[in-house]
């Protein structure tokens, strides 16, 4: 094919191809059951394995009774606050925790591209109470730990978290 000289220059690449910039949208949030095992604290192995299994680190929060969702920076920086004795029963702590969790989801859920939550043990009813009827319920992906008979429940949870985060960060 003969291309006229005037057009040949136009067809010659003059600059590297422009790649679309990655969108800087809101990051997803990851809610983990703080203190459920000794390894589930910021900086510890299991916490970091869950927090870093996606394409990039999401905003990570710990679910703490009775405070609801606390950012991992707060969990790291304010041990005096976490150690403070609140003097309420476990039942009250769960009720107040679910109320604060619900308020957090309704207020701050929209600031994330989606929420991935890992719940297990005593947190299951707390989470259920917090999420039922929330306008953000459809944006939350729940990862439940499989039954104890499964050999590696946290390996399963990590794969599930990674899959959900990948979809949210696409």
């Amino acid at each position, binding site marked *: 094919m003969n291309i006229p000289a005037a057009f040949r220059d136009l067809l010659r690449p003059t600059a590297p191809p422009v790649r679309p910039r990655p969108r800087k949208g809101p990051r997803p949030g990851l809610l983990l059951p703080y203190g459920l095992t000794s390894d589930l604290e910021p900086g510890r192995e299991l916490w970091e394995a869950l927090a870093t299994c996606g394409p990039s680190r999401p905003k990570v929060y710990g679910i703490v009774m009775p*405070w*609801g*969702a*606390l*950012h991992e920076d*707060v969990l790291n920086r*304010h*041990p*005096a*606050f976490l*150690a*403070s004795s*609140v*003097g*309420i029963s476990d039942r*009250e702590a769960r*009720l*107040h925790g*679910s*109320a*604060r969790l*619900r*308020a*957090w989801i*309704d*207020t*701050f859920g929209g600031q994330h591209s989606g929420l991935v939550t890992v719940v297990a043990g005593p947190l299951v009813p707390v989470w259920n109470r*917090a999420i039922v009827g929330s306008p953000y319920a459809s944006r939350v992906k729940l990862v439940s730990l499989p039954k104890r008979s499964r050999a590696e429940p946290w390996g399963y949870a990590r794969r599930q978290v990674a899959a959900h985060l990948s979809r949210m960060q696409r």
Partner: protein
Amino acid sequence: MSGASPSVKLFPEKVELGSMASAVLTKVIPGKRGFVGLYRLDPVDESVYDSRIRDLPLNVDSPRFAPVPGTWLEVLEDEEEDDGPLWMKVGLSSNYGRALAGAAARSGMGELVPAYQIRAMLDGLLGVGGL
């Protein structure tokens, strides 16, 4: 916060802070971003009060302590009197407060920012101030 149940208050009237002080709610200040409960700190044991909290406003870079989203606490000196009482501001943002009010009524919370939360936030702030 029109959605709040009448039985759910924003802040407790009085918060006992052990032998250090008791905090008495003097007024609730509504603002654009939420509500502020203004507390006067009355010493219970002067020596404990002096050693634990008197220097707090001088010891912290940022007096606002907000570990639980939507709420915060701040301790201030009296601007008019040198040796006057310390004051404590407890804040509740309007968006979070509105969301919490609905959930709190179902959970039996007497106040949206209960006394135990104020005590815990003050403990945390004292920890930040090294006191």
